């Protein structure tokens, strides 16, 4: 009797199915509880990995809900790589389509934020520009300048006070009343999480997209003050080149 890896895998991920044919205890008896060791290892290790990856989603959803949701997710989206540090890439889109999660409308944005934190943590090391680099650019060429961003930089769009929800669930504090697009950077080894205004996010999105400064600033509207955004990007070591 041959036990195929295909049958083995199918039974692993289906708790209602019997152990596959041909697995047995030393006396030749079908080994249901012994097979359950593997079944349990797979489900528990993947659920634990998701819990580690999405601690604030877990907190917002509640652990019972999260683990039940993870059980659905891991069967629909098992890892496609042995590099588990990025497991859960499909979680934001999954949550968007997962009916029971709709009562917490910002859950998928939080999942996006927490995914970005992990990508930022593991991003390549780069050398930031000097803080005074921009001052050395001739003022009349500034509108044509483009910026290179560190690979650890992520901008998470949000119509919710995403930053303060994240902060309240990791450090404590109150929830803001305004939409907070959220910037993730990595000044050194630990990612930093900062709130932006909608206009700052619109300007930054254009800059990350490679638009020249003059064009990007149009997204900020009349009277937009670039100073605070630029200061934040510099202090967070987010910029790695200025291209004239």
């Amino acid at each position: 009797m041959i036990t195929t890896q295909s049958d083995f895998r199918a039974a692993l991920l289906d708790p209602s199915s019997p152990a596959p044919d041909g697995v047995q205890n030393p006396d030749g008896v079908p080994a249901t509880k012994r097979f359950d060791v593997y079944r349990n290892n797979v489900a528990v290790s993947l659920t634990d990995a998701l819990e580690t990856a999405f601690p604030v989603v877990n907190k917002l959803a509640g652990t019972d809900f999260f683990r039940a949701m993870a059980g659905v997710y891991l069967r629909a989206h098992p890892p496609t790589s042995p590099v588990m540090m990025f497991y859960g890439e499909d979680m934001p889109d999954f949550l968007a389509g997962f009916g029971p999660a709709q009562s917490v409308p910002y859950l998928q944005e939080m999942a996006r934020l927490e995914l970005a934190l992990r990508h930022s943590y593991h991003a390549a090391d780069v050398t930031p520009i000097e803080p005074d680099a921009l001052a050395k650019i001739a003022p009349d060429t500034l509108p044509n300048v483009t910026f290179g961003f560190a690979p650890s930089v992520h901008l998470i769009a949000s119509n919710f006070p995403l930053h303060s929800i994240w902060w309240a669930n990791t450090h404590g504090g109150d929830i803001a009343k305004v939409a907070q697009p959220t910037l993730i950077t990595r000044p050194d080894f630990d990612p930093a999480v900062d709130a932006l205004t909608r206009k700052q996010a619109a300007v930054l999105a254009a800059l990350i997209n490679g638009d020249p400064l003059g064009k990007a600033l149009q997204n900020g509207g009349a009277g937009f003050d670039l100073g605070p955004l630029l200061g934040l990007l510099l202090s967070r070591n987010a910029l790695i080149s200025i291209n004239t």
Partner: protein
Amino acid sequence: MLDATKPSLPYTPGVGYKAQHFNDIMQDAGPVGWLEVHAENYMGMGGRPLAQLRHLSEKFPFSVHGVGLSIGGIGRLDADHLTRLKTLCDWLKPASFSEHLAWSTHESAFLNDLLPLPYTSATVKRVADHIDEVQSTLGRQMLLENPSSYLAFAESDMSETDFLAEVVARTGCGLLLDVNNVFVSATNLGYSPQSYIDAYPLDAVREIHLGGHDEDEDETGAPLLIDSHGAEVVDPVWALLDYTLAKSGPKPLLIEWDTDVPEWAVLVEETKRADTALSVFA
């Protein structure tokens, strides 16, 4: 394949490295002479994990231990993953690279567990072909680790020790002997762990693993030990280590503790016991 000019692990205790122990290790590693890391945890592009390895590798020899290559899988090896392993090994220049006699990937789904294989001539060929590919890609010998087994396959027609000896003969790979896995498998499948060691190709052993396990029982009331890497090494496993070393001579010994990871001081106590086991050869 074995080359005396290549680096090898020292005949001292090592530990599986965990990031929370970085400062302890840098300050005072006690009897710990080398470190082992799970390859897949160091496949990011940069940041703290790789920076820590860079610092530690200036002080300690390293073993890179893969947990995701699926050497026993029926499909082709994941070429992207093999490339990542080569990148890591070329950068870190570890004294040893090892992987498991197991499968974990099927049709692109990675199941995050070390799944069992039937011991047949067809499996020998598949595993040996995959090890040939690993060794030629990495340009080095790899070590193959015996699994913890919870069940047997009706189709198996050879012993695990004969299987491993045949793979070594075909590929020139070395072996990573996990004595806790031997104890777990022997208990679960009803044979003597000493007789397993007697039949095992000890000449090919380049490293020995020691770890803890959990105790359960199956539906017939038979003992069912589960490899957990989450507790102290139990006395019968230390005794099995002494039995093994008496036959094999000294080997690099690794304390594996991957879940419910304790304070560094607890690991140091375990490595002292491993150091004592090696002291008879001093």
